[in-house]
């Protein structure tokens, strides 16, 4: 299996530890990992600024992976969602023709051969790597956040009743608590537009986890991780990759 690791913009700063731990886990799973010269996925901000730029940015990333005959794996649910959304849009012949008109300026071509996965989806297929690695009895809250599940046509699991994260962590040996805020928004996207609301929301999530009996909140999104970490210091928050890496 050959995968192109899409680090996302946070991997060079706030999400560095999650990205590094994820790369290590992929290697432990025996996956061949390459790191092409990917650009920003644009997020909904560039998409709303100029849809054609957004589509071309994502088409460039997808074309980089396909020219290496690899699928894309990323740690960031926003990058995952943008790449996948672009891939769906580019099934349209006209849009593909237009985007290739743009990519011609940088001597690239989009063909639509590469798939897009979130790191949890990939590692879930290699459970033997993490099986039984945790000390029994540690109570954790598995926190999905938004974009890994919604909108449902792009998400990796049932948005109303997901289970992939819990069962992965249980396989590792953690005790996963019943956490009703698991797919609520961390407020991270409000950091710039409504900082007070952001803080309130992030603290609510952590409070819910604590109420559910968790000793630790486990994230799968670098922005959720950042949000829950800077908004409070009462409950430890860590990405699942960092949590298990030292044990496998």
């Amino acid at each position: 299996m050959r995968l192109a690791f899409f680090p996302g913009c946070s991997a060079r700063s706030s999400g560095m530890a999650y990205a590094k731990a994820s790369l290590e886990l992929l290697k432990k799973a025996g996956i061949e990992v390459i790191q092409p010269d990917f650009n920003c996925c644009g997020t909904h901000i560039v998409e709303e600024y100029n849809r054609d730029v957004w589509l071309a940015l994502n088409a460039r990333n997808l074309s980089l992976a396909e020219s290496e005959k690899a699928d894309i794996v990323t740690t960031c649910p926003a990058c995952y969602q943008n790449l996948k959304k672009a891939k769906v849009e580019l099934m349209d012949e006209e849009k593909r023709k237009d985007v290739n008109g743009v990519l011609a300026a940088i001597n690239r071509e989009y063909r639509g051969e590469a798939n897009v996965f979130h790191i949890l989806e990939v590692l879930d297929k290699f459970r033997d790597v993490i099986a039984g690695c945790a000390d029994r009895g540690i109570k954790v809250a598995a926190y999905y956040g938004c974009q890994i599940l919604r909108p449902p046509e792009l998400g990796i699991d049932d948005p109303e009743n997901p289970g992939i994260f819990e069962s992965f962590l249980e396989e590792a040996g953690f005790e996963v608590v019943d956490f009703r805020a698991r797919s609520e928004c961390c407020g991270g996207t409000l950091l710039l537009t409504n900082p007070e609301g952001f803080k309130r929301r992030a603290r609510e999530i952590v409070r819910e986890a604590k109420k559910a009996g968790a000793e630790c909140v486990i994230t799968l999104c670098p922005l959720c991780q950042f949000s829950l970490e800077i908004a409070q210091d009462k409950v430890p928050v860590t990405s699942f990759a960092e949590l298990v890496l030292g044990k496998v």
Partner: protein
Amino acid sequence: MKCYQCGTCTADCTAASLDEEGKFNPRRMVLEYYERGKVSELSWLCANCYKCYRCPKGVKPYEVLAEMREEMIRNGKVPAFVKAFVETVRAYGELDETAFFLRLMRSGRMMDSSIVISTIKATLRKEGIAGIGKTISLPKKSRCAKEVSIIFSVVEGARARGESRVVPVAQGVPA
């Protein structure tokens, strides 16, 4: 209009739950947009959490609010954080977090009370080590920055000339 004003979107909405004054109301925003073309500046407060996907009529309020923001951008009403975000990606090829926050701070249009400002200021004071236990690197352009800026200029150039699509012309950048 498909929307039958049930308010499911508003009950589920993250931004509405954080607005004690009750001004952020996607049910009303969708109605006013469809009936009168009213574009609400409040749409910038949408958390993009997609909770409103549960709409029983398939309206996708998150897309309606995105349309409003697009319309404002097209009319030149571009918020400082959008400008800073887009310009950082254009120049660096990726959203270099440090460059982005510096740009925002220099635009002087961010609230001083913002948790972001204090975080970043603390970060810079500590010579690259954030007070929150996070590493923040110095701004650095990605290798892909040149290709990204070409994508921007090719698309924006075509749009400025009123062309509906880009005519393929290789510009000699090695693939």
